[in-house]
């Protein structure tokens, strides 16, 4: 677990918050929400078609976490993996429910979510759309791993924990996913492969 922490961006700082949350401190859960809700939402949007559903699931994930936090054992990195595992299961449940309902999707209006202010500076909307579409077209296992890695910010061992896979399998999937993404994006940017990110 400590290895997870060393490779994760600042997650170790949340160790104390997780302990407080386990002790029943709701404000600590609120802090965890603040720290982890955006990457979780980003992951959920990549898994369930509609941003609105993803937002609803995000709330459910945290309520599930509150309910079961007594059973959780580990540090902040483990907690993050655990939370994403809940999100993963919730997304699967929703997909099952929707398939039973046979609902017609309301266009692809929300396939590309509203950008966050910070990212708006870096990529324009057309590029975001192209990337989102490319991610959505990945095979499910690759999409899942790449979303956890890049949207969720998880390390490979954390992803392995969240999905009950071997770390080697996660690395292979992320490698393949990036190859496929690069291939999918290439025709759009002849010359120098990709647009440059702004500073």
């Amino acid at each position: 677990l400590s290895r997870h922490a060393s490779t994760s961006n600042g997650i170790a700082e949340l160790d104390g918050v997780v302990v407080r949350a386990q002790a029943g401190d709701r404000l600590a859960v609120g802090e965890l929400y603040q720290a982890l809700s955006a990457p979780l939402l980003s992951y959920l949007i990549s898994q369930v078609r509609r941003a609105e559903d993803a937002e609803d699931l995000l709330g459910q994930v945290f309520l599930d976490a509150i309910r079961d936090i007594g059973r959780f054992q580990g540090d902040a990195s483990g907690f993050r993996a655990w939370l994403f595992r809940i999100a993963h299961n919730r997304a699967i449940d929703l997909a099952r429910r929707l398939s039973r309902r046979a609902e017609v999707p309301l266009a692809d209006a929300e396939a590309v979510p509203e950008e966050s202010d910070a990212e708006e500076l870096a990529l324009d909307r057309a590029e975001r759309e192209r990337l989102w579409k490319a991610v959505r077209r990945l095979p499910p296992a690759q999409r899942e791993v790449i979303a956890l890695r890049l949207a969720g910010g998880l390390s490979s061992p954390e992803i392995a924990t969240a999905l009950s896979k071997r770390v080697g399998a996660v690395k292979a999937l992320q490698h393949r996913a990036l190859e496929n993404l690069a291939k999918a994006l290439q025709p759009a940017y002849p010359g120098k492969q990709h647009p440059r990110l702004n500073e």
Partner: protein
Amino acid sequence: MVNIRKRADRAVLDEMLDGVVAGRPVDVPDRLSSLVETAELARAALAVSVDESTARRHQTLIQLFEPEDQPRTLRVTQRRRVRGLAIAMALFLVLGGGGAATAAASAGAVPGELLYPVKRAIEAIDLVVHPSASSRGRLHLSFADRRLREVQALVSSRGSHDPDLIEATVVSYQVEVTATGVSVGEAEQQGLPVRGLVERVRLRIAQHLVVLSDLATRVPPKAQDAIRRAMQRASNAQEKVQHGTTKPQGGSGPQGSSGPEKSTPPGRGHKSEAPTPRGQGQGGGH
């Protein structure tokens, strides 16, 4: 062997990705540069922020949730419950504590289901706790989306259609879409920044119109009039929002350090604009 090299590449790539995720510069070997560059782009593209109203709602639920009182899952089996009871429960959830899982579970409910009144009550509360006109505009727009999805769900449900329920939901859509236009207008009058919202409303209503024109051919005759009226309302709201932002450049913005919000941005080649209700409705449907 190829496999050994591949495995080594995967390990190196994994380290590079740790750097990308942490936002620290990485020294990338040439053979992996396109993959790392792709990862950087994808990371930037996938990043989203949680809407302020959503975060507030979730935080409220987090603080009020009492896990011991909640069943693990809620099943919508008993449909004949009193509507008033559900509304009271929703108010209790959000204001009084407990039952937050019900609130979350109600999110996917459609008209006629037990939890649907809970969903509507929570929406009403959402509006109350968001005093600013622009956030109300955003909420109304998202509620209009929901109503339209509910109509779709009702129309496509395998059981028999209930024309009254469909009609009532379409009417609710009309209400939301009209309220969207009104709230955006208010926000503008108050000098709030609305460019992003206006663009969002414009695109979303364009999509609504496409969906409505499709629904017009599939709903029971009784609901068709309501659909036509809804298309008219949607077009009106769209026009109102567009004209609202194109005219007042000089007057509405305070002194423009960042400048008053611009009118609709120059066309970026968005896929399809809305078919007008007239163009679609009379030409294609009947």
